């Protein structure tokens, strides 16, 4: 990243950046978020959950775009609902891809700076655009941008007033791997500078690579919260299935069968299905194995990586194992406070 993020100092007695106390939101008979409590301070927290789990509802509540049906949603100690002045200290990157197609990225970010009341909008916009490395394309209309470039422009617009709290709803949607790495580096810098960064994702690996802490939401409830690695261990300590396409599936299958972490290999029409007992060892060795076998790998994708299946495994089939592995298994209620205290899982 070209421009370092300014450091943010938090007062010792300052309230948590984000606090939810028994927050719920329902639409008629449908409960989108159910009795969720947590507190977040500086650092990166990933809000993880399958599509439709309630992540966006939660983000809309804490950015004041949805009124909680019950409970409290506080940002920097103040209720977020009907409190737009909070956006002086909060930046939001919305999930929806829409941008003003007729504005250039520079105009967009300058406009955001002006709307946030930044004293020198042009200078602030230059800094924010440099932070997301969008200088070269900054004068092109956003309508002609790729998804990833739009995402960077949105992030620059959200950062332009240098907020201590940054909320991002599915920020990596549509970005290519290189852009994803750039955005992750930017967010790490934000967190290292003392900011509170909360981002949502339905992709486990994104959260794994970026978040120090994690909030897992399933069916509107906080299913787990705390240190990511403890929770990830629960998630990885299970058989994984992969689907592979290669130039010679049969030869690759022969090589895979010799691997100690491969439990089963089956040749299907046009693909190879592999079941492994060790996610990390398998993903680390597959590239070497294909190279040594003289096979070209066309596609490798996990076939059971949906969070639904992960949590079905964790809270269903492996309930007892989950309880003992990394965390204290709680009651059916929400977490009791900071996910920084300890990893905690509870049945969704």
């Amino acid at each position, binding site marked *: 990243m070209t421009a370092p993020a300014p450091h943010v100092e938090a007062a010792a007695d300052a309230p948590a950046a984000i606090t939810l106390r028994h927050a719920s939101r329902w639409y008629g008979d449908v409960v989108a978020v159910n009795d969720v409590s947590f507190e977040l301070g500086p650092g990166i927290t990933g809000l993880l959950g399958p599509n439709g789990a309630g992540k966006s509802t939660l983000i*809309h509540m804490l*950015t004041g*775009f*949805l*009124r909680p049906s019950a409970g409290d949603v506080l940002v920097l100690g103040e209720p977020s609902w*009907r409190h*737009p*002045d*909070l*956006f*002086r200290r*909060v930046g*939001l990157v*919305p999930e*929806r*891809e*829409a*941008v*003003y197609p*007729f*504005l250039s990225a520079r105009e*967009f970010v300058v*406009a*955001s700076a*002006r*709307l*946030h*009341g930044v004293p020198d909008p042009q200078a602030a916009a230059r800094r924010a655009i440099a932070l997301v490395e969008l200088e070269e394309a900054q004068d092109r209309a956003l309508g002609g941008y790729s998804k990833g470039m739009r995402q960077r422009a949105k992030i620059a*617009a*959200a950062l332009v007033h240098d907020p201590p709290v940054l909320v991002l709803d599915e920020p990596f949607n549509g970005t290519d791997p290189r852009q994803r790495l750039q955005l992750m580096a930017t967010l790490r810098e934000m967190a290292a500078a003392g900011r509170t960064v909360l981002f949502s994702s339905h992709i486990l690996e994104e959260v794994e690579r970026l978040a120090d802490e994690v909030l897992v939401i399933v069916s509107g409830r906080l299913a787990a919260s705390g240190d990511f690695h403890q929770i990830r261990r629960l998630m990885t300590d299970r058989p994984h299935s992969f689907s592979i396409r290669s130039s010679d599936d049969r030869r690759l299958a022969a090589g895979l069968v010799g691997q100690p972490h491969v439990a089963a290999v089956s040749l299907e029409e046009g693909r190879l299905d592999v079941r492994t007992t060790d996610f990390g060892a398998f993903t680390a060795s597959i590239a070497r194995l294909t190279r040594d076998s003289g096979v070209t790998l066309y596609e490798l994708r996990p076939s059971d990586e949906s969070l639904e299946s992960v949590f079905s495994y964790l809270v269903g089939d492996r309930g007892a194992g989950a309880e003992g592995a990394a965390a204290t298994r709680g009651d059916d209620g929400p977490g009791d406070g900071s996910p920084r205290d300890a990893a905690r899982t509870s049945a969704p």
Partner: protein
Amino acid sequence: MTWTLASITARQLLGRRRGLLLVLLALVPVGLALLYRFASGDDDSRPVEFAPDLIERVVVALVLPLAALVFGTAALGAEIEDGTAVYLLATPVERWRIVLVKVVTAAAVTVALVMPATLLTAFIVLGASDEHGLAVGFAIAVTVGAVAYCAVFVALSAFTSRALIAGLGYVFVWETFATGIFQGTRWASIREYTLGVADLVSSAPPAAFAADLDGGVALIAATGVSVVAYALGVRFLSRFEIGERT
């Protein structure tokens, strides 16, 4: 801050195909005026009668409400629909300011379209001999009408995603049919307020043009409707919830 909001709104309103279609619509009364000027016979009505009649039937009854409906509902509603409104709402800008800028910008764009059509139509029919001030009267009246219509349509778009349909219902069902059939409902018609203001400002003889509403009452009513609609718009936007619109 205000200028930034207005600039984005104006670019959004003018940058799409709808602007071109509305310009074509605004040329309809001008075309009819040209037809009158060059193709009318000796038995046709006199210019001082034809001009207000044409402006009332085509500009006030059609071009003005349609332009205000399109611009008024698009000024805020289009951004809410396509998701770009979040870039305005996720800022500390007060909601009253956002609604005010939206109403004023939509009204300004509407006036920029309708007023030249009004003046040009009047000029073509009346020539330089507009001794009753019809052109100026209608020009001021469409400005008042544009503000009232836009305030109502911006408020509607903050309230419902079906603002365009609701607005069409108001313009073509209520103002065209209901107020035409039931005289007592004319007090609730922005079209009637517009005509009343035109009557108030111009000095056309009753035989040429006379509004149903008293000019003073029409002006007060138009102002009242604009203020109430604006206040409702601010209230709706302050309580706006993402994904909650009907």
